[in-house]
């Protein structure tokens, strides 16, 4: 079963790579069909990825005797997060028709799935602290939060590329001709950040409720908690800034999206692997 799952994940990895190839080909040839093919492959791979996660949930259930979200160890979280990121991306692309965004986001998905392939995929019982229904409520919030912030990061990168082009006064050429204006990108970033912010707020609060039940303390200043709080504060600065400055300081807003994404990486990986603390399940 483990071998079949590994092969399935390899096919998913290839699928995402293929989709990335189509999106990157779009840089050199702005034929809309290329992104349509890229999106088609992405949707198919996403469906396969959903099947993979369902099989994993089923296998976890058969092993442990109860159902739980596949986020109980680093392998499961990375595969679930890459799935969540794909879903958030597909929703964003469908709603905004901002296809070039795939160039920024799909490589991140490829990296995540590639990393998952290298990780230990065996099913192990979750540590006692994670044996709780809260795992199904608290951890999935991170998919929405980190997913949205990753998308906002991709938009912020495009913002600066587009800004450079707009500053030069030249007419848009190449891939940037298919990127919305900086004004529109600023609006899109805001819309994405508020989605992520809602998820992050819920993530931290539900985590506090779980911590109260599990560790006996709703807040322990644990590195994972503080890193998530830093991320929340960065995006809170973003939202207050946008409220205060409107769209006058778009550059600052985009910089905050980049800083926020650094905070996300620090929370997701840096804390789990580098710093000791109550959340150090990743080391397992």
């Amino acid at each position, binding site marked *: 079963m483990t071998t079949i799952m590994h092969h399935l994940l390899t096919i998913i990895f290839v699928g995402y790579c293929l989709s990335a190839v189509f999106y990157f080909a779009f840089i050199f040839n702005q034929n809309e069909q290329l992104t349509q093919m890229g999106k088609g492959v992405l949707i198919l791979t996403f469906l396969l990825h959903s099947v993979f996660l369902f099989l994993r949930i089923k296998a976890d259930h058969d092993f442990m005797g109860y159902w739980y979200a596949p986020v109980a160890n680093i392998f499961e979280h990375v595969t679930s997060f890459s799935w969540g990121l794909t879903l958030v991306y597909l929703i964003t692309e469908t709603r905004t028709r901002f296809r070039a965004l795939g160039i920024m986001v799909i490589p991140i998905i490829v990296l995540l799935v590639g990393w998952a392939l290298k990780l230990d995929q065996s099913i*192990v*019982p979750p*540590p*006692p*602290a994670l*044996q*709780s229904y*809260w795992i199904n409520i608290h951890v999935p919030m991170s998919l929405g939060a980190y997913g949205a912030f990753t998308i906002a990061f991709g938009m912020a990168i495009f913002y600066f590329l587009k800004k450079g082009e707009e500053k030069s006064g030249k007419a848009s050429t190449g891939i940037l001709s298919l990127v919305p204006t900086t004004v529109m990108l600023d*609006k899109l970033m805001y819309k994405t950040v*508020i989605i992520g*912010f*809602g998820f992050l*707020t*819920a993530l931290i*609060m539900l985590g*506090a*409720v779980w911590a*109260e*039940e*599990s*560790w*006996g*303390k*709703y807040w322990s*200043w644990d*590195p994972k908690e*503080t*890193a998530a*709080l*830093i991320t929340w*504060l*960065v995006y*809170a*600065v973003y939202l*207050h*800034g946008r*409220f*205060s400055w*409107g*769209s006058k300081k778009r550059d600052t807003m985009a910089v905050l999206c980049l800083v926020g994404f650094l905070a996300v990486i620090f929370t997701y990986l840096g*804390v789990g692997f580098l*710093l*000791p603390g109550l959340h150090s399940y990743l080391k*397992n």
Partner: protein
Amino acid sequence: MQIRELIGRRRVQASRTSIESNPVIKDAAQAPTANKDILDTLWTFLSSVRMAIWLLSISAVAILAGTLVEQNQPMEKYVSTYGATLTHIMQVMNVFDLYRSWWFELLMSLICVNLILSNFNRAEKIIKKYYHVPARMQPGYFENAPEKISCTDAGSLNEAALNVENSLLKLKYRVKKEVSPEATYFIADRGQMALWGSFVAHIGLLLLFVAVIYGHFPGQGFERSAILLEGDTYRIPESHFSFHLDKFEAEWDESRRPRLYRSTVTVTDDNGKTFTQAIEVNHPLNYRGVKAYQATYGPGRILGHYVDPQGISHPFSVDYSEDRMMFFTVEPGKGKRWVGVLKNFIPDFTVGPHGEVGSLSKEPVHPGSFLMLLTRTDQMPPDPKNIQSVGWITADHASSFQGVKFYLDKVSLFSGFQLRKDPGVKLIYISFIIILLGVSLTFYFHHKVIRIKVSPGVSVTAVGVRRDKEQDYQEEFNQIRRSVEGA
């Protein structure tokens, strides 16, 4: 009194705009502007969004420092990591106990002040927006609107106005109308609750601070830990009950990861009520406002036995000590009396290919220890030549001395509990709900305002006025257009 005075001051400021447009009282209004005193400046400064941005940014940097620098560690560890000079500077700055430092508490206090003051201002603005919306616009408002719909040939003036009103009501808008000879004006809005979003979110945050302070108020709650071996009873000084550890169980999987650890306790309160309950991670005991959590476990007592040359087995037990040698008495018969000394406790004993001893994990699943024997108990200090190294002992590997075989059978584990009473927790949960409600109202619900001018002629001009959100009014524009053109 001062607050009331300040609120009064804010009101003066708020009404200043309308006063300034009136030339008759403009001069009178300029006096308080000139005399803008320090309290006014302080209020403006402390309640500003800019202040909030600074406070949030500084908090983020401070918490980052607290995350990167491990808190409350021994000073030697800091000196070896950062060097003496940097350690001294960091110590002066309270970086090693950052979250309890005076400056971090000051930072949090300033955030509270900002929350309180800015919410006063916010409430004032919201109420104004909610109840006092003028229908009449400044000249040029409709002409200069960034995005608008305009319909001409909309029938008679009254008919067009009626159609516009009906279409707005159908869209569940609250409609205000003002008729003047030159035109009929409408101002309509929907989703007024969204206006309160940020106010509610900030009230929730304030409540969170209050709840945290309340939970830490002297006499309100407590926090302590207790280490118990099976058979021990613990009375929580601040409560009216005690609990007895009946049994502690721990299970590990094949990879030596803990699968489960559980304490079975019997609680007895001062009224004589008793009951038994299992406490596990994620399943604390909750009794009379006190919660007992399964926090940790570890080696508590080492149990073993030795078999004397006559084949008689004698049990021994010794309290576990992490950093000291552990002693027990050995009576191998014939009136002999030795002292067994256990050192180098190995929780998960294994022997490598070259005979080296190590531990496969930190879990006490296969304990082992090195045994020494002190054969003369009458010498103090003992003569080193009377200290015999016997060898490693485990449950399945004995070491012997003069025909006496020693085994280390198992380790009985201690159970560590975290005991806590925090009356602020419920309030914290309520604040979470309020914050989430506020965040949802702010970001996912929209207060939509639409302004419409129906002019004789007949033309209808509608403008959605939520900043940067004109595209969100397409449904309304279409509905109005249809209702007007249909007529």
